[in-house]
């Protein structure tokens, strides 16, 4: 080893980059995730576990869809809507996708304005995000109603073909919709914290002694983007496949 190790420089040592950086970070006998608040690292790890849950659902869906001998109902027709006298395939799902992507965009900007300590803009953008999320859940409720009441689709069977269609559909979109609903509630909580100035004055939150900081907006954002991310996969493999 020709590299000399500097000690006591009076200023923080530069962190190594690349593979050497990974080894240094993980072996440093300190926290492994530098440059991120621990709440953010923990949110990432939670999201990793959630990834495994949703992947298990989607892979089970693939397994039952591949192994059924009954015809699979065509999602393009099941989720068609009649608008202005014309039957448009999958249009409701497309609108839901755009709504959720838009909410992701406003969330990303809320994080940016949060770190700039722009309370007003952060609050407004968080509320828009929550409103778009609530719109998404509302459209999902409409979609479920249409499927259950009009088309007679049940978790244990449906008149269109393979029984597994209903069970996987309600399981996957139900779990995702729950995530969106929880996200909307927390978006409103974070928005209230922002507008009250809790984060500027570092007031500890409900049930915690930790000081309020604008990083909670980014942590909220990670969760919200993840919900959007999961929808990307559901949209592709369930609705389009």
């Amino acid at each position: 080893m020709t590299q000399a190790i500097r000690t006591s420089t009076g200023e923080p040592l530069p962190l190594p980059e690349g593979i050497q950086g990974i080894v240094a970070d993980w072996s440093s006998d300190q926290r492994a995730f530098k440059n991120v608040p621990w709440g953010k690292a923990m949110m990432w790890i939670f999201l990793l576990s959630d990834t495994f849950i949703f992947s298990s659902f989607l892979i089970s869906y693939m397994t039952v869809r591949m192994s059924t001998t009954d015809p699979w109902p065509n999602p393009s027709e099941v989720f068609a809507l009649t608008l202005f006298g014309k039957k448009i395939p999958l249009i409701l799902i497309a609108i839901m996708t755009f709504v959720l992507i838009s909410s992701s965009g406003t969330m990303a900007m809320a994080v940016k304005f949060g770190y700039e300590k722009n309370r007003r803009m952060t609050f407004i953008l968080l509320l828009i995000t929550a409103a778009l999320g609530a719109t998404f859940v509302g459209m999902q409720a409409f979609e479920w109603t249409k499927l259950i009441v009009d088309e007679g689709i049940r978790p244990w069977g449906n008149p269109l073909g393979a029984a597994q269609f209903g069970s996987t559909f309600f399981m996957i979109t139900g779990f995702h919709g729950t995530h969106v609903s929880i996200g909307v509630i927390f978006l409103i909580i974070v928005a209230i914290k922002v507008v009250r100035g809790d984060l500027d004055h570092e007031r500890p939150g409900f049930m915690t002694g930790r000081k309020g900081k604008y990083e909670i907006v980014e942590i909220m954002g990670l969760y919200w983007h993840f919900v959007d991310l999961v929808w990307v996969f559901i949209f592709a493999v369930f609705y389009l496949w």
Partner: protein
Amino acid sequence: MAHAEGQQHPIATHAEGQQHPIGIYLKIWGLLFVLSTASYLVDYFHFQGYLRWFLIILFMLLKAGLIVAVFMHMLWERLALMYAILVPTLLLMVLLGIGALEADYTFFTRGVFFVKGLF
């Protein structure tokens, strides 16, 4: 801030967290709209077979990549975090493979045993 030690990262990260110009979010937002429209059009124009599957997977992965990289700021994180989160997801490919094998076998046995009058 407590986590400010060693902030020598060349790009973007400093004690106050991730700060990027608003333009990048708007551009990615636009790009996600374009990609979503494209994947919707795959269905609208009734592409079938391998072309359909290829396009669906392509647009799906591009969208997922943009969301994780830019909206979730993974692009600007240190490699230690990036690998800790992204590498374990590759294990899911194993589960995917096992699921596909199992499904093939189930489909085969159903084909054999569900045919009436065979046994």
